[in-house]
């Protein structure tokens, strides 16, 4: 793009600011939506899941697994942006601290299923090494 002085000379500074403001506002809405899908929804569903006795079977539990898989779908290329990374980190922490820990404590068949999910989330280690190591412990 042109230098700021050149933009001023051509009377384009307002146009540039307007475009930037719209792009920024749309980015903010995008991140809010992503956060709603991954973090807020995750938190409310985990609360509902634990309130209902914390069994793996059931609709809520299936939804949580669906959220896991959505996280898996966000491969390396989508984690370039800092904003996306922050949202994913929050969702990952919620899932690991509240959901996986709960399931692992219950043991049995659920342990094996959780191990498969942890393996699928392996790519996140690159971005959240501490959280991933905590999960493995």
């Amino acid at each position, binding site marked *: 793009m042109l230098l700021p002085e050149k933009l001023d000379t051509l009377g384009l500074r307002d*146009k540039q600011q307007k*475009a*930037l403001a719209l*792009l920024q506002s749309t980015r903010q809405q*995008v991140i809010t*939506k992503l956060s709603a899908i991954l973090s807020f929804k995750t938190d409310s569903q985990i609360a509902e899941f634990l309130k209902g006795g914390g069994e793996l079977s059931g609709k809520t539990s299936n939804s949580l697994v669906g959220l896991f898989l959505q996280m898996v*779908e*966000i491969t390396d290329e989508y984690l370039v942006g800092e904003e*996306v990374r922050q949202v994913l980190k929050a969702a990952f922490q919620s899932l690991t601290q509240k959901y996986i820990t709960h399931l692992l404590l219950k043991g049995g068949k659920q342990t094996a299923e959780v191990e498969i999910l942890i393996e699928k989330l392996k790519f996140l280690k690159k971005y959240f090494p501490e959280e991933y190591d905590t999960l493995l412990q």
Partner: protein
Amino acid sequence: VNLSFLVLCEWVSEYVKVGRILSNIFDIQAYPSHHQQVLTLVYEKTFELMELFAGKGKELILDFKAVAFGKIKSKTINAKHICLLSNCLSVVSKIA
């Protein structure tokens, strides 16, 4: 979003090309006003395209219109689609 982004890049590149060609035709020293008009037009259109991209991206992904158009394989908008739009908007913001 992918297609919209590629089209945006193509148009921006075309505008820049047109700008360069016209700038070469009009000698900056001899025709400063013409040169300035060309530059203004090119950048005005580029900013307009960026605004259009932001608006369309929002419509397609946040307002779920991509599902209605049948442009995506899944039945709904998921985290991956939102991340893709986020990345594209980030690139466009840097260009602006």
